[in-house]
């Protein structure tokens, strides 16, 4: 069955910055299958986090999302939904900083039990039992004891596991992850990534994982979307996107990542700055920094064009990357 779980088309987020309207997310379209892990990579200001938050209606004050969002909440065809209605009903989110995302005045067990009690109408005892079961599921040792602790008494890794348990408590079909491992050490990050992959396998849960860390995304994700200046510039199977980029930005980004096993060859970097949402270039937004930019790039309108069955790029001259 190839029905999608989530369909986002032409998503636009507009905000006011000191009275000036900006569009930090400008025409994002993507689809997600059941049980699929989609990575969204991008640098600061690329709009990746806002895209994720718009799906759940969690935009900062003054942010307005437009576009068509469809979600298959009941297992059927994706249907339009109101973002704030899917809280606790099919989509949940894991934030970057568990210390600020967990209410410090509630015990860990109560935090996790809150979802089942509110959204599934469980009674207190059942919800508590469910919380302990979830804590065991996400690999928290001695869950009975830890359920009685306060968030600040837990280490960073355990707190992030609590976040994951909270997200899972409402049995979501889709978990959105906003840089959930950025604040963690590599060993703990590895454990959380392993946990997410394991949960996906067991519950056929789909994940959208937003990160700036290409190495992490390469390890976890089935498909990878690259965002630049509020648009998806390339999307496709992770390995293909990483090893055979179809967009000069992707290629430049990949050439900036220090490789783990490589020799100390010069890293590439990208000249100039990531653009400010108040001053996106017209035409291809990457053109001003692109080593391959041509005259017609300045007039190119944004369109994500398929290059094969499962890949698409917004570059109008992807052939430049094939040249030796």
């Amino acid at each position, binding site marked *: 069955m190839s029905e999608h779980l989530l369909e986002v088309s032409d998503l636009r987020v507009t905000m006011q910055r000191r009275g000036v309207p900006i569009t930090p997310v400008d025409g994002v379209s993507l689809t997600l299958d059941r049980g699929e892990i989609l990575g969204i990579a991008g*640098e*600061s200001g690329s709009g990746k986090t806002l895209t994720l938050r718009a799906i759940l209606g969690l935009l900062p004050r003054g942010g307005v999302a437009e576009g068509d969002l469809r979600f298959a909440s009941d297992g059927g065809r994706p249907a339009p939904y109101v973002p704030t209605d899917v809280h606790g009903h099919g989509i949940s989110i894991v934030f970057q900083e568990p210390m600020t995302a967990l209410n410090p005045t509630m015990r860990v067990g109560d935090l996790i039990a809150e979802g089942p009690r509110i959204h599934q109408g469980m009674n207190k005892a059942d919800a508590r039992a469910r919380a302990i079961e979830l804590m065991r599921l996400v690999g928290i*040792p001695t869950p009975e004891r830890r359920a009685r602790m306060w968030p600040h008494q837990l*280490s*960073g*890794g*355990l707190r992030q596991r609590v976040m994951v348990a909270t997200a899972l408590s409402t049995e979501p079909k889709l978990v959105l992850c906003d840089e959930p491992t950025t604040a963690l*050490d*590599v*060993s*703990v*990050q*590895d*454990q959380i*990534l*392993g*946990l*997410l*992959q*394991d949960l996906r396998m067991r519950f056929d849960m789909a994940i959208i994982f937003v990160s*700036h*860390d*290409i*190495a*992490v995304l*390469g*390890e*976890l994700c089935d498909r990878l979307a690259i965002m630049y200046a509020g648009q998806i510039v390339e999307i496709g199977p992770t*390995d293909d996107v*990483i090893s055979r980029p179809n967009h000069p930005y992707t290629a*430049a*980004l990949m*050439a*900036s*990542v*220090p*490789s*783990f*096993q*490589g020799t*100390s060859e*010069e*890293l*590439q*970097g*990208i000249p100039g*700055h*990531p653009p400010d949402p108040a001053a996106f270039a017209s035409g291809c937004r990457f053109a001003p920094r692109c080593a391959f930019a041509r005259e017609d790039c300045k007039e190119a309108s944004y369109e994500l064009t398929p290059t094969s069955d499962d890949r698409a790029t917004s570059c109008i001259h992807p052939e430049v990357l094939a040249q030796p």
Partner: protein
Amino acid sequence: MTALLEVQGLTVNFRIGSAMAARLRGQPPPDLKAVDNVSFEVERSESVGIVGESGCGKSTIAKAIVGLVPISAGSIELDGIPLTEKRDQATTRRIQMVFQDPGSSLNPSLTVERTLAELLRVHKIVPKDQVPERCGELMDLVELPRSLLRAYPKSLSGGQRQRVAIARALALDPEILIADEAVAALDVSVQAPILNLFNSLRRDLGLTLLFISHDLAVVRHVCDRVVVVYLGTAMEDGPTEQIFNDPRHPYTRALMAAAPKFGVKKEPGKSALTGEPPSALDLPSGCRFRTRCPLAQDICAETEPDLVESETDAEHLVACHFGWTEAPA
């Protein structure tokens, strides 16, 4: 040849909690051993990486070397001269540091030029009339346009701020540059050219680099030698290639396995490192890694292993009872 910088048994304790409360209870004042008996050497023009997870004490080592925190035991010698928290201007100049956070690394009320010029004037690096020219040269050195000399930090990007921070450190013509997570907060496309800049500064100025980072891939890119630190003490010390290709300490091995590797396909969650480091206030007996170590034996709980060099390679040292032998099955 003696090393340019020699760190011998460096220990840094932080007083935590109330000393008076402890005295009332008849106990010694509570101390946190942030750095515990760390020794390593840095040769001139070498680039040494100090890697470890957060809270392992790697930043404190850097701060002790530049005199920002007092040394509790051990010594730090620069060309054979012991360094303490108090040091004269001439010694101060020789070791400079770049800090992590681009948001707070520059004084927001000074222009770039005033930031640089202040140091040039106070240390009388160049005659007064040459200060503006020298500021320009420093900008060239860190590959920033001279027009940014008039800019305030607020209008600079994160990458530009870190470049200015590097220029500020270079203003004093240091021999040793310490970079404490200097690229950790930057996007990769901005981080890459700054890593290249560190490499070219070493090449062109003969700068000695002490590079503190949690990111193994970054360290591999910049460093000749790596010291792996766990809970305040050194676990392994050796040439970068050997540490990466043939790690001898189980902690180093686990760290390598846990790190996501760009360009290498691997499954997450398969590292031997489970759980999280124990508290530095309550260290395990013997080897401090044994509580998470897949090789741990009885002896590991009894004696703390010393950093021992390999029989074949004096450059590669490991603090593990089984570093150079196969562990009993």
